[in-house]
Structures are given as C-alpha cells and as structure tokens.
C-alpha cells in the first residue's frame, strides 16, 4: 500500500458519485435548491478542481470554498511587513513558495527580491535553520505561515535553534487557527451551510474534538476528510448520510492519518513556543479574537516582529491597510459570493495580475476557478 493511487481509483469514484447522486436525489437537492457543503481547507478546494469533482458530483451538491488557505487570508499589511523585513540589509528572508507572489501594497516578495532583497524559497523551516547555520553573519528570517498543520514545524524548529544556541534565526509568525474563523462564519446570520468537510491535515495535529462545537452548538455535520478524490467523495457522502439521517456529528473519514486526539508531540511544541494573540487580522474578515499565535516570552528572541520592531512588535503599532478596491475576497472567502460573481474576476484580477490573494495561491478559490476552469470551461 502506498496510500496514494489506491485512493484515486476511477472505478471506486464512479460508485461513490452514484451513491452521492442517489443521496442527493433522496434529499430532493437540485441546482436551484442545492445542498451546500463547505470544504474549509484550500487543499480540498484544490483537489475538487484538479479532479473536476465539482462537475462530476450531482448538480444538487454545491461546494462552498472556505477560508482555509493560510496565504489567502493574509492581509496586505502582513505582506508589507514581510517585505520590510526582507529588505533589511543583511537579512536572508525565507518563505514557502506560496507567499512569493501575494501582492502587498506596493510589491510582492517576488518583486522585492527582483529589486534586491535576498528572498529565498524553501521547502521546510528546517532548510531555513540550515541557512542560518551556514551564514552566521546573516539574519535568517522564516516566514511562518500556516494553520495548525504547519505550526508544529516552526515550533520544533525554534526549539531546535534554541537548543543549538543559534542567534541569527527567527520567525515572522503568521500562524492561525481553524476553529475561530469557523465560529465567526457560523455566527453570520447570512450563512446557509448544510455541512462541512473538515481539514484532514489540521486534524492530524489537533484531532477531531476541536470541531465538537459545530455539531453540538450549531447542529451541523462535519466529516474530517483526506485529500485524495476518493477521500473527498466519501466524506461528501458521509455528510449527506448524516443530513438524511438527521444527525449532526463530527466524523472521521481520514482515520488512517487523523487520531481522535491529534498528535501529542506537536501539540506540546505549539503549546511550549506559542500563545494566542489577543487578536489577529484576516484578509476580508478583519481582526478575529484569539485567531492567531505569537511567541511566548521565553522564545521572544526568535520572534522577528519583536526583534526588528515590525508589525505587532512595532512600538508605534501596526498600520492597517484596506483591501484593494473592488476586491470581493472577503465575501468569496466566507462563501457569500462565488468567485465568478466578483466584478474583478477575469477582468482586473487574473493569476497574472492578481488583485486578491484568492487569485494567487493555487489553493485560492478564484485561482482554482480560473486555472481548472470551473468558470471558463462552463462559459464555453
């Protein structure tokens, strides 16, 4: 078993699609009155489009693309702060490739690099750590992006740096947590969701219980799902079954990877290194209480914001930057608008000239619509 191809079998997919169709019919779902299922995670959005699942499922199922892309929810001000850090003399600024093209107010990291900043794409914070070891005369800053899946990797890297006594490594922390924005979404009176496909890799760290409030307090089903097409389809079917049976539970389709209580080492590392920020700014959503992490006092030496007095570490406070004009990212990200309904989609905003982050990241709903043709193939 290699845990990949087995979950991409087209024959099994056809069976699942049929079962979903039968379930949808049984629920009386139609294009006009669809069952709305939100996949929270951008990785799921990506899989849906890559395999064309949105057009293969019964027309009574509508996927709503949630706020689960850590790059897409990054406000312009945070990109500006990253650029400020990257442009400091002597700094090597390291980042996942995802963040390179996200537009800041005046420039992206890619453009800052072209204009002289030493910005390097890495695969892992461990690679940034290695750069710090190899360049003791330089300051190596890592752009710490991501939800609970990625947070342990920077926490463990910071612990490793501390253990080695590395003094030229620090992290620009932009880690965020999934439950707070979900709660914000569910509290929105305009929101009409019938169920959720839950983020598999976040859950592998935090387990399934952090979602309990969704079933308990809001009466919505949630199925934690893997990322292969069969995983996704099976999870959709499981959501439909719950609805049909009038249940609202947290189920785990991805049990081969997600333990009920998550990963204790990772959780301990997060707990040791980070603490919740009072609030954190999300693109299109504004400041959300306790939705982001910052370094604990004990690790403040590894905190780029504190070290260089930037962003939340600036003595004069952070500059808020409004979203670009005409950008509907906030509404798209909360599922209140389809990408194609954004007035900028395909006009002012394309992957070549993105206005919003949703068009940059290949996980962004707008980019997925554009690249994989949700919009353009249909228009044909």
């Amino acid at each position, binding site marked *: 078993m290699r845990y990949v191809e087995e979950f991409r079998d087209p024959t099994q997919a056809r069976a699942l699609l049929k079962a979903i169709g039968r379930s949808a019919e049984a629920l009386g779902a139609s294009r006009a009155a669809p069952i709305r299922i939100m996949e929270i995670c951008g990785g799921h959005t990506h899989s849906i489009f890559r395999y064309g699942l949105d057009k*293969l499922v019964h027309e009574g199922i509508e996927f709503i693309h949630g706020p689960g892309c850590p790059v897409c929810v990054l406000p312009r001000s945070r990109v500006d702060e990253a650029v400020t850090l990257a442009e400091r003399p002597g700094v090597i600024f390291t980042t996942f490739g995802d963040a390179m093209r996200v537009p800041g107010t005046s420039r992206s990291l890619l453009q800052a690099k072209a204009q002289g900043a030493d910005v390097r794409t890495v695969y892992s914070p461990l690679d940034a750590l290695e750069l710090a070891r190899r360049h003791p005369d330089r300051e190596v800053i890592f752009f710490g992006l991501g939800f609970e899946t990625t947070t342990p990797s920077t926490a463990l890297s910071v612990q490793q740096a501390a253990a080695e006594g590395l003094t030229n490594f620090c992290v620009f922390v932009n880690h965020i947590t999934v439950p707070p924005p979900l709660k914000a979404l569910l509290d929105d009176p305009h929101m009409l969701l019938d169920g959720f496909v839950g983020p598999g890799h976040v859950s592998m760290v935090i387990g399934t219980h952090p979602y309990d409030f969704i079933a308990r307090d809001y009466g919505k089903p949630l199925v934690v799902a893997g990322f292969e097409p069969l995983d996704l389809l099976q999870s959709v079917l499981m959501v439909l079954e719950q609805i049909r049976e009038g249940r609202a539970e947290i189920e785990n389709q991805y049990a081969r990877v997600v333990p009920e209580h998550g990963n204790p080492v990772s959780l301990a590392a997060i707990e040791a290194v980070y603490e919740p920020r009072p609030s954190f700014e999300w693109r299109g959503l504004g400041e959300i209480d306790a939705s982001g992490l910052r370094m604990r006092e004990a690790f403040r030496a590894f905190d780029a914001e504190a070290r260089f007095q930037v962003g939340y570490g600036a003595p004069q406070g952070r500059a808020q930057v409004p979203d670009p004009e005409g950008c509907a990212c906030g509404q798209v990200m909360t599922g209140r608008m389809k990408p194609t309904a954004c007035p900028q989609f395909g006009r002012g905003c394309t992957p070549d000239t993105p206005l919003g982050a949703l068009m940059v990241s290949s996980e962004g709903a707008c980019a997925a619509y554009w690249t994989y043709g949700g919009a353009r193939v249909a228009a044909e």
Partner: protein
Amino acid sequence: MNAATKPSRLRDTHVTLSHGGGGRAMRDLIEEVFTDVFRPEGDEDQARLTDAALATPGARLAFTTDSFVVTPLEFPGGDIGKLAVCGTVNDLAVGGARPLWLSAAFIIEEGTEIALLRRIVASMVREAEAAGVRIVTGDTKVVGRGSGDGVFITTSGVGVIPAGRDLGAAQIRDGDVALVNGVLGDHGATILAARGDLALSTPLESDCQSLTHLMEAVLAAAPGTHAARDATRGGLASTLNEMAEAAGVTVELDEAALPLRTEVKGLCEILGLDPLYLANEGTLVLFVPEAEAEAALAAMRATPAGRDATIVGRAGPRGSVPVTMRTAFGGQRIVDMLVGEQLPRIC
C-alpha cells in the same frame, strides 16, 4: 597547431578577468579550451560555409538561437554544454530542418574552474557529433564575480529545410493526433533536485538529447506531419497552449495517457508542482493527421529517443480554452499556461 604536443600556456586553474581582456591570457584560454577542441576552420572570426542542400531550389535556411542558463552546470544526464547543443539542434529539427552548423558563445564568470570549462566543451563536441552538426564559430566573454553564474552558453544554429517541407503550429488541424516521444518532466525534476537547496535526492536523469534522427524518422514515416515542438521551458502545458493558440484549435489531453515516471510524480507531490509545467530537454510534441498517427508512433518507437512515445491527446475545433484535459475520472479541466515560474509550495 597540434593540441596534443603543444605545451600548455594556460597555468591558471580558474578564470580571472584577465582571460576576458582581449590579450594573451584570453588568447591562451580560447585556444587551449575552445578552439583546440572545436577545431573551427580558418583563423577568421566568421565561419565560411557551403552546403549543396542550401543551394537546392526551394530549400530554405533555418536559423535559431537560445541562451542556456542552468544551475547546477552539471547534472545527472547532462551538463550545460550538452543542453546548449541539443536545445538548438532540436529547435532546428522540430521545424523540419536538417541542422548543419552551430555557433557557441560563452559568458564565463570570474572564478569558474577551467577544468569544468573543458568538460563542458568536450560534452558539446560529443553531442554535436551525435547530432550530426558542426560547431563552426564562437566567442567567449568573462564577467566579474557576481555578474554571472558560472557559465552561460548561447548557441545559434543554421540548418536547411528541404523544398516542400512546411511544419508549423499554424498547420495543425482539428482532428490531428498529439504524440510525445517520451516521458514528461524528467529534466525539470532532475534540475530541481540537483540544485540541492531542497535537499531532495532522486535517481532521475535529464532527458536532454538531440532529436534530429527522431524527426527524420518521423518525417519519413509520416510526411503529412503538421507540426512539432520541443516542450522545454513551461513544459508540455505551455507548449501546447502556444501551439493551440497559433493554430486556432483546441487540444484535449488524456490524463491517463500521460507518460510520467513515478519519481517525477513523487517530486511534484512533495513540492506541490504540476509535472505538465516541468521543462523537458529532449521531449517533443507532434501533431499528425489521424491517418498517419500510428506510422509516426511506430517510427518514433524505433528510434532511441522515442522508445516511450505515446499518443497523449487530440486537436479539436476552435474554442475559448486552448488546452483542456480529460481527467482519469472523466472530469475535464483547463490546462492553462503557467503564470510565472512554478514555486515549491505547502498548500
């Protein structure tokens, strides 16, 4: 002059700015590293050439150029020299030209090891022989440290297109079959891993190879072939987009038919990349009328560069989206051009 017996005047082990200064140090570098190996005819800065095929009525001269920049300069399956010969030979061959002559211009960064230059030059000569072309003229420049990246090579190629041959993307017709001669993405994946900064190791090798003989075989077996192009930068996806746009047709790929090595797929999964956008350096895509598709396929498979040849898709009528793909599930998705360059991503 006899390279074998002539005493070397080149005592440096690394290139310095002196080697670009127009004086004796430069002359020694050029003679010992380049001209003693390439052996151009005559002393002049211009090659003087004749070829009977060029004088044939209806024949056309094909002329192309490419600069080669690659890190690292040597990689599994090739080096920048091999690349520089294959790339330009292939740009001639895919247009139906018989490659005749190459020029080679080197931009060398101060500090480059002279032994490395010698290996690169040897590799060029080897590959030129294999492809049946001669490197007839050249140039070297030296730039300061930090103003270059080891070695850049620009090759230009001249070839002859026999009378009556007119391959081109504009010739592609609705119904044409799209074929590739081998697996996709090996070069791009090899280079990504060979750079070392991602700390990935693979058993992959670049597909870097010249396609002259393969193209001759195809054109003999399937003379109605409409177009061919090597799927280099931007990969198969970008090449097909360009061709489809130039032809005013659509192309639908069949995901299940795409020839991809496990390791290329693995590397792409790790880094979040799409193998359709990975560069190839010895892989081309052909558009052939349906009636000749099997003949073209068989002809390719009979050559060393075409053993893994396969049909990957088909041209359709004009449409709003140039390239799409039928997924293994029966879904359809757009295969767009790449936006910028592919960057490793985590989400």
